[in-house]
C-alpha cells in the first residue's frame, strides 16, 4: 500500500484482505497516544488559516491544542460550539481540500491530521460522555419551524434552531433518518449507530422527527405554513435524482444508478438478504462508472457483496478524480481496479436481459472544459469490451424536483436547483429557506452543514422580526 502521508501520525485501518469482505468500519481511529502525538505537530498559529477552510468555522487550533494536552472533553466542547456532527464530519469531510489544504505545514510536510483528530475527539466523547451535550435552550419560543429532509443540512438547521428555543419538526420522506448519511454512505465508512446517536441527541434537544412524509406530496410547503402553523420552512432535500448516461443497454437488468445500488445496500440492508427482504445483484465482476466519492462507495460495496473484481471506469485520469484521497487509497488497498481514460459506449446484455459487459472506448485528455478539468477525447479505433455482471452509474445527481414542482413562486435555476441567497438561504418565497445540495447541486456533507448553519441564523432573525411586528415575544 502506498504511503500517502509520511509525516502524519498513521491511523490504523483493518487489514484490506479482511475488510474487503466485511461491513465493519475500515478505519479504526487514533489511540490516545497517537492523537496527542498528531496534535503536537500543530504549530498553534496565531492566525489559524486552517479555520478559514472549514465551512462551519470549527475553532481548529483551540481544539487541537486541547487534544495535545490531553483535555479531550474540552476539545469536544470547543468543536461542538461550531459543529454538532463531529463524529460524522471527522469521517467523511474532504479535509484535503478544506482545512488541511490551508495548514501552514504544507508543502514542506503533511498537514496536521485535523479530520482524524476531530473523529478521535468525537469518538472519545461518545465513549466517555461529558463535553458533547448541547445546552438546553434558556427560553422557549412559540414559533414552529419545519425542516424538510433529515440529511446534514436539515440536522444542522434543526439543532441550531432547537437550541434557540424554537419548536422544530424534521420531515423525512424515507423510513429512516439521516438522508445521504443513511442511504448513501456505507456502514464501513460511517457506522449507522453514529447517525442514530446524532438523531437521538437532537430528539433530546426537543426536535420532533416525522418519517414517511414526502413534502410536496403528503403535505405541501404551503400547507405546512397555512394549515399546520409553521412560521418558517427550511428545504434541505438534497440532490437526490440520479443522472443516467442515456446510452444503449441502460435498462438491462443489473444496471443500477449509484443511488439505487447504495440505497438497497445501506438503507435496505440488501447485503443481509434474505434476513432482510430487499435483494440486490451479487456480482462477480462489477463496473462502476465515475470516480467520485459515490463511485468509491459503490465499488467498495460491490466487493463486499462478493465481487471477485471491482472496476472503476472513468473517462478522465487519476488526477481528475473527485474522490477523497483516503477513500481512494483504501479502495486501492482493497483491490479495486482503476480503468482510467475509459468511456463506456453501451451496455452489453446476455440472452436473458442481464448486463454482461460494457463496450468502451479509450480517451485522451484535451483542452480544459467549463469545469476546469481537461476534456476527455475518444481515441478513434480504440473500442474494446470488458466483462461485467453488475454496472453502477455514479455520474452525479440532479436536485430532487418534488418541492420545486409543488411550491408556487419558488424560483429554481436552469439545473433545477432552488435559488437561495448564499449568505442566508432565503428563497423567492418569504419564510422559505433552502440549503445544501438542493441549492448547490451535489456537494459535500460539510458544505450542506455550513449552509444549514447560515440558514438557521437567518431564520432566527426572520422569526424575531416577525414576532416583533406582531408584538409577541
Amino acid at each position, binding site marked *: 500500500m502506498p504511503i500517502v502521508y509520511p509525516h502524519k501520525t498513521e491511523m490504523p485501518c483493518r487489514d484490506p484482505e479482511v475488510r474487503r469482505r466485511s461491513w465493519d468500519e475500515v478505519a479504526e481511529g487514533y489511540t490516545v497516544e497517537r492523537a496527542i502525538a498528531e496534535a503536537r505537530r500543530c504549530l498553534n498559529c496565531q492566525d489559524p488559516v486552517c479555520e478559514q477552510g472549514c465551512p462551519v468555522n470549527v475553532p481548529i487550533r483551540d481544539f487541537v491544542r486541547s487534544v495535545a494536552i490531553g483535555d479531550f472533553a474540552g476539545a469536544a466542547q470547543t468543536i461542538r460550539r461550531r459543529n454538532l456532527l463531529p463524529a460524522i464530519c471527522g469521517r467523511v469531510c474532504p479535509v484535503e481540500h478544506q482545512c488541511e489544504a490551508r495548514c501552514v505545514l504544507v508543502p514542506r510536510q503533511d498537514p496536521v491530521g485535523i479530520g482524524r483528530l476531530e473523529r478521535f475527539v468525537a469518538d472519545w466523547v461518545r465513549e466517555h460522555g461529558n463535553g458533547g451535550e448541547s445546552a438546553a435552550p434558556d427560553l422557549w419560543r412559540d414559533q414552529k419551524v419545519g425542516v424538510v429532509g433529515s440529511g446534514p443540512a436539515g440536522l444542522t438547521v434543526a439543532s441550531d434552531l432547537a437550541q434557540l428555543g424554537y419548536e422544530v419538526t424534521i420531515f423525512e420522506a*424515507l423510513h429512516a433518518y439521516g438522508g445521504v448519511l443513511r442511504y448513501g454512505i456505507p456502514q464501513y465508512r460511517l457506522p449507522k449507530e453514529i447517525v442514530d446517536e446524532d438523531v437521538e441527541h437532537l430528539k433530546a434537544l426537543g426536535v420532533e422527527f416525522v418519517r414517511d412524509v414526502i413534502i410536496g*406530496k403528503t403535505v405541501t410547503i404551503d400547507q405546512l405554513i397555512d394549515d399546520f402553523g409553521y412560521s418558517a420552512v427550511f428545504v434541505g432535500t438534497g440532490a437526490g435524482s440520479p443522472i443516467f448516461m442515456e446510452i444503449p443497454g441502460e435498462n438491462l437488468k443489473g444496471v443500477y444508478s449509484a*443511488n439505487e445500488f447504495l440505497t438497497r445496500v445501506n438503507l435496505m440492508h440488501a447485503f443481509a438478504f434474505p434476513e432482510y427482504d430487499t435483494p440486490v445483484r451479487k456480482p462477480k465482476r462489477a463496473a462502476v462508472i465515475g470516480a467520485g466519492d459515490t463511485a468509491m462507495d459503490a465499488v467498495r460495496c460491490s466487493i463486499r457483496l462478493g465481487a471477485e473484481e471491482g472496476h472503476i471506469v472513468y473517462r478522465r485520469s487519476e488526477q481528475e478524480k473527485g474522490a477523497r484521497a483516503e477513500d481512494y487509497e483504501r479502495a486501492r488497498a482493497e483491490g479495486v481496479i482503476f480503468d482510467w481514460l475509459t468511456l463506456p459506449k453501451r451496455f452489453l446484455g446476455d440472452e436473458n436481459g442481464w448486463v454482461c459487459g460494457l463496450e468502451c472506448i479509450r480517451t485522451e485528455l484535451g483542452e480544459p472544459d467549463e469545469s476546469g478539468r481537461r476534456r476527455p477525447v475518444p481515441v478513434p479505433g480504440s473500442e474494446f469490451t470488458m466483462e461485467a455482471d453488475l454496472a453502477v452509474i455514479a455520474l452525479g445527481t440532479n436536485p430532487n*424536483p418534488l418541492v420545486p414542482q409543488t411550491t408556487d413562486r419558488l424560483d429554481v435555476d436552469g439545473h433545477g436547483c432552488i435559488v437561495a441567497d448564499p449568505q442566508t438561504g432565503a428563497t423567492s418565497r418569504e419564510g422559505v429557506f433552502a440549503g445544501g445540495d438542493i441549492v448547490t447541486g451535489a456537494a459535500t456533507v460539510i458544505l450542506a452543514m455550513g449552509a444549514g448553519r447560515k440558514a438557521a441564523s437567518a431564520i432566527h432573525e426572520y422569526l424575531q422580526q416577525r414576532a416583533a411586528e406582531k408584538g409577541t415575544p
Partner: protein
Amino acid sequence: MTIMDTTARIIEKRDLTDVTKLFVVHAPLVSRNAAPGQFVILRVTETGERVPISITNFDHEQGTITIVVQEVGRTSALVCALQVGDEFLDFAGPLGLEVPLPSEGHTVLIGGGFGTGAVFPLARELRSRGVRVSSIVGARTRELLILDDLLATESDEVHVCTNDGSVGYKGFVTGRLEELIDEGAGFTHCFAVGPMPMMRAVAETTRRRGLPAMVSLDPLMVDGTGMCGGCRVSIGGKSKFACVDGPFFDAHQVDFDVADDRMTTYKEQEDLACELAGVGR
C-alpha cells in the same frame, strides 16, 4: 391548527378472493392530498421491503385510504395477514402524479385482476366531471373477479369478462373492447390497469383502433420519490421514473419488453423468500 397524524391503522378488511384482500386504512395525512392515479409505499416489518400499492379509494373527510393487495410474494403475504386494528409500520404517500383525466367524452376503463381496484378512483372522478364511463372488468374465472360491484356504482355500464366464460363475456378484456367499439360505443379515452400482458394487449388494440389510452405501470421500486431510478421505464424511447413521472403513461409509447423484463430482476431471490416464508406462488 390541524394536527399532523401520521398513523395508518386498518379499520376494515374484506376478503375479495382467497388471496386478494381489501383494506380500508385510517391514514389521515396520506388521505389529505390523495388524487386519482396515485399510490402509497408501505412497509410491515423492520427488516421488510418498501412496496408500492395503488390507491383504490380515498376519503378526504374520513381520512381513509383503501388499498387492494394480492398475495403474490413474501411482503404481500405479510400485508394480507394483517387484521383490523393493526397499524402499518410505514405508510407513505400519496406518491406519483395525478392521472390526467378528460372532462368530456366517453371513457372506457379497463381493470384486470386486482388492477380493477386501481381504476375505481378514476371512475369516481370522471363521473363527478360528468364524463360518461364504461368499465370492462376481467378475470380468469368467476371466483377471481373482484370489485365489479364497486366499479358499477361509478360507471354508466360495466362489462364483465372471464377467460373461461364462467360469467359474462368469454375471453379477454380486449375482445370485449373491440366488440364495444364495433357496436359504436364511441369511446374517446381509455385507461387500463392490470397485469402486464393485459396492458400490452390494450395498448395494441387501442393503437390499432385509434383510441388514446393510458396504462398504470407498476415496476420494481425502492424509495418512490425519484431518488433511485430503479423504476425507470422506457416511454417513447426516453427513460422515465414511474414513481415521479407516472405511474400512468401513454400506452402507445410504453416499451413493454423492457418493462416486462425488468420485473424479473429478482425472480430468484423472490422465489427463495417465498420458499423461506412458506408462501406458495
